[in-house]
């Protein structure tokens, strides 16, 4: 794999993971807290 491949793999997993965690957190929060208070 080239240097660019490692860079893409690193940024892809880190930023993708950050985004995925945020989305999962939203969904869990919505499921646990039906009202929109405090959002």
């Amino acid at each position, binding site marked *: *794999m080239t*240097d*660019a491949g*490692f*860079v893409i*793999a*690193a*940024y892809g*997993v*880190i*930023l993708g*993971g*950050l985004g995925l*965690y*945020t989305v999962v*957190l*939203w969904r*869990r*929060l919505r499921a*646990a*807290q039906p009202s929109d208070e*405090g*959002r």
Partner: protein
Amino acid sequence: MKTRILGFAALAAVVVATVVGLLVVPADLNQGDAQRIMYPHVASAWLAYLSFGVTALFGILWLWKRDLRYDAVALAGAEIGVMFTAFAIWGGMMWGRPVWGVFWQWEDPRLTTTALLLALYVGYLLLRRLTDDPERRATRAAIVGVVAAVDIPIVHFSVEWWRGLHQTATIASPERALDPAAPMVFVGTLLGMLGAFTVAWLYLMIRRYQLARAELAREEEARLGRLRAVQVAGLSSSSQETAR
């Protein structure tokens, strides 16, 4: 609403920092493009320290004040810290292969103590699942969170105390704070990425704290429901006995 604005600010900051790190800053003369991985790698490692530091601090506050809100903050720190530790390890592996020639080396103290840090806080999260009693859970978790935090300075200073593959601190050691080992353009980009990740961290901490509070309220509701059901069952059986 303020938290939502913080979320948009975090998104914008991470996008800008990523564009700068990938496309604006020049590649390193020796490491080439692989050096760009340092920006999210180092930022993730620092935020992992911060997260676990928060977990330890709020664990102590729970033990002292017995307020479950402190335990909710400690939980948020542990979960988000585990995520950032995994990012730091992944980024380090992706950088290590082209620069060191290996993804991982168990003989390296920084790598091994970081893997231990990840294992300790995964254990912290698993431990929390062992009991439904919120107070018992918070106490056990607080003790583990405080003991596990001993590994944070060990991870940080491992590169100074022992020899290994991992380089020593570039800007974090006091004697290098004003004279970093890397060019200022790289240090500035790193600090920019750290700032962006910190805003994202703050947003996630708030959301995870809100989730922990909501889950606790649901647990409490379910417990009261069970208690009421037991009371009703007890009343109906005693009235049946009276009728006989």
